[in-house]
């Protein structure tokens, strides 16, 4: 604390203030002034499925610009089918055998990936809190699956909060990151996302992810997969909205449906 006192004394001196007189934030209410978030939060909570679908459309279009493979899945089964397809078809990068690691999250546990990948020579790990071998398991995995707390349509961003059972490395160390985002967690822009974050007690660590890892350090040529995942697949879990069929106009959004059969077969 000594170093702090000397340091802040120097600052006060620099600001032309009495150096030893500590200033309190209560004297300057404007400094940490809070804007009223009630309106933003109400807007987020009152969004109709139709409005959310519109946001999904914006998210998909922005995701495309960032080389995120984003698609809509209508059900958990569809999500599982899409994941199974990726696990089966994607190539390994660092390891000789197929390991997949996913967050201990209800949406992901419900997919029962271990069941539908049975007999495929794939090992599925779940990031249970107390697992001391999780680091090794994550390093061994070529796919990491998470369920982000928030999605942001405007910048095609997903926000991962670090909490028990949802460690940081799952979206970072494996070659491929698959994020399953529930449509109800989608917001329009960063201002809305910050309002939501502020409302939750912010964890010590969280991350905003907007695309696969990339670099342009060699002659400004864009290359994906510098240190983080080289691919980011975003599955937006979005049950069909009955009233109005929204055509997002984004090609490829129906893709997972095609794997439906393959998946259902493996489930039997």
């Amino acid at each position, binding site marked *: 604390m000594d170093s702090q006192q000397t340091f802040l004394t120097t600052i006060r001196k620099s*600001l032309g203030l009495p150096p030893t007189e500590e200033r309190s934030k209560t004297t300057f209410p404007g400094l940490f002034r809070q*804007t009223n978030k009630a309106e933003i939060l109400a807007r987020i909570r009152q969004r109709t499925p139709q409005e959310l679908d519109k946001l999904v459309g914006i998210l998909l279009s922005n995701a495309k610009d960032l080389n995120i493979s984003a698609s809509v899945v209508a059900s958990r089964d569809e999500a599982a089918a899409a994941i199974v397809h990726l696990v089966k078809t994607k190539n390994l990068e660092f390891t000789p055998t197929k390991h997949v690691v996913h967050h201990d999250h209800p949406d992901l546990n419900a997919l029962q990936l271990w069941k539908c990948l049975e007999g495929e020579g794939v090992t599925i790990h779940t990031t249970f809190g107390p697992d001391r071998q999780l680091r090794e398991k994550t390093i061994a995995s070529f796919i990491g699956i998470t369920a982000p707390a928030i999605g942001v349509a405007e910048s095609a961003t997903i926000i991962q909060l670090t909490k028990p059972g949802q460690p940081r490395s799952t979206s970072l160390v494996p070659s491929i990151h698959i994020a399953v985002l529930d449509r109800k967690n989608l917001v329009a822009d960063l201002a809305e996302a910050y309002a939501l*974050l502020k409302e939750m007690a912010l964890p010590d660590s969280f*991350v905003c992810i907007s695309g696969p890892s990339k*670099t342009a350090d060699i002659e400004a040529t864009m290359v994906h997969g510098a240190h983080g995942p080289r691919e980011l697949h975003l599955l937006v879990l979005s049950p069909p909205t009955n009233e109005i069929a929204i055509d997002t106009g984004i090609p490829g959004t129906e893709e997972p449906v095609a794997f439906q059969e393959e998946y259902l077969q493996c489930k039997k």
Partner: protein
Amino acid sequence: MSKTTPIPPSDYRTAAAAGIASPRLQKSLQGIQNRFGKGAMEFWAKMDDQELRHRVKESRMNTLAHLDIVLAELAKNIRARGGQVYFAATAQDAIDYTLAVAKKNNVKRVVKGKSMTSAEIAIDPALEEAGIEVVETDLGEYIIQLAGDKPSHIIAPCIHLDRAQIGQLFTDKLGIDYSDDPPTLTMAARKALREKMLGAEMGLTGCNLACAETGHISLVSNEGNIRMATTMPDVHVALMGMERVVATFDEHRETLQLLTRGAALQKLSTYVSFQGGPAALTDPDGPREFHLVIIDNGRSKILADPEFREVLACIRCGACLNICPVYGKIGGHAYDSPYCGPIGAVVTPLLDGINKHADLCKGETLCGACRDVCPVENDLPRMLAALRHKLAYGSDRWNTSQHNPAEAYAFALWKLLVSHPVLYRTSLWFGKLFQWPFVRKNKMIGSLAGLATGWTKDRDLPPLAGQTFAQLWKKKYAARRPNESRAQSKEAS
């Protein structure tokens, strides 16, 4: 004070000449400036929220004016999260603290996230001297480290190297088959660095923006190396210049958006990670210790000077590099500092000595492009001019001596002449008389002697004319001048 010192020999000129002579660098810089510099200008012009930049600047200045309170709040909130905060008055303090943390944790290898502050305090040599391996993990910085080179751009450190040079470097240092294919080279570095990052005991990063209200630092990266360096090693030490803080979470959002737009026209960088403390006991990964080192190292002196305080509002996006006509030609090496371009030309002399870096402010053109593109509307040209003023007259406050006394004498003489017509005319008369030995056959002065050599090195000067303008005027036109009474009557009619 204001004692006179001789002009030191300049590496600026040599490095600038080398930059201008490199076709590779010229092409790269042009590419980056055409894309990002022009892009940022266009973006600001058509941005919906035209008040944003102004608002962020105001909040930056307000934070600086209350920096003691904001930093105390940041430290309090980070400590509440279990993080440790150290206030380093000098570079050496920051180095000593980091070394002590490394020793305590028996660190053998440090993986770094790109940090200009770490270069400013020269922590790498100190760590290496202590027997610790230091590995840069940003691809560009890694290439620079392998090459034993220095970065030349804030966000594109190895912009001066081409793919063939990098390919050869990787063959030599990483033992891979030669390739000049950027994806192949990137994959080779990805593999090599993954091993380093998974096997390091300490991650060392900078801090893009800390948020006092929530007790976090935030770091932006596109590669994911910073997330690796802050997740996989057991200890994370973040070095932060004391001005790199915002008060509220709202301010964080607005400032962050200007940072990523200004840097590379991104809505957000691929990764924006927030760290406030060590991993919880229930977390299977993340650092067991988190240390934030808040560094002064000369910043409080800048804060104290109203003329330069504004420069601390800088968010280090690098937009000014992407628009500056001087940087765009000479490249980053000429600035001989972790901070290059217009921002470097202001901040390097202030942190490291105005006399020592005298060439920087004189090399810039004061064209104003950096001010126009700056997301926080910093008036860099004004500050460059202020630095020149210090060099011209000396400054006790900045311990600056008169840079070029001869120039000062010359201007003093000029002042005397132009304020005394008789003296002026007499010296003109002498000038005309003594210039003839210098006038060449083409009726131009081709080379002057002594202090004036520089004027004629690359160009010819016309000699003083036989008759002055005033004399010519009198002779040729005075007679034709309408007399006053006539002109007045004409106007009246």
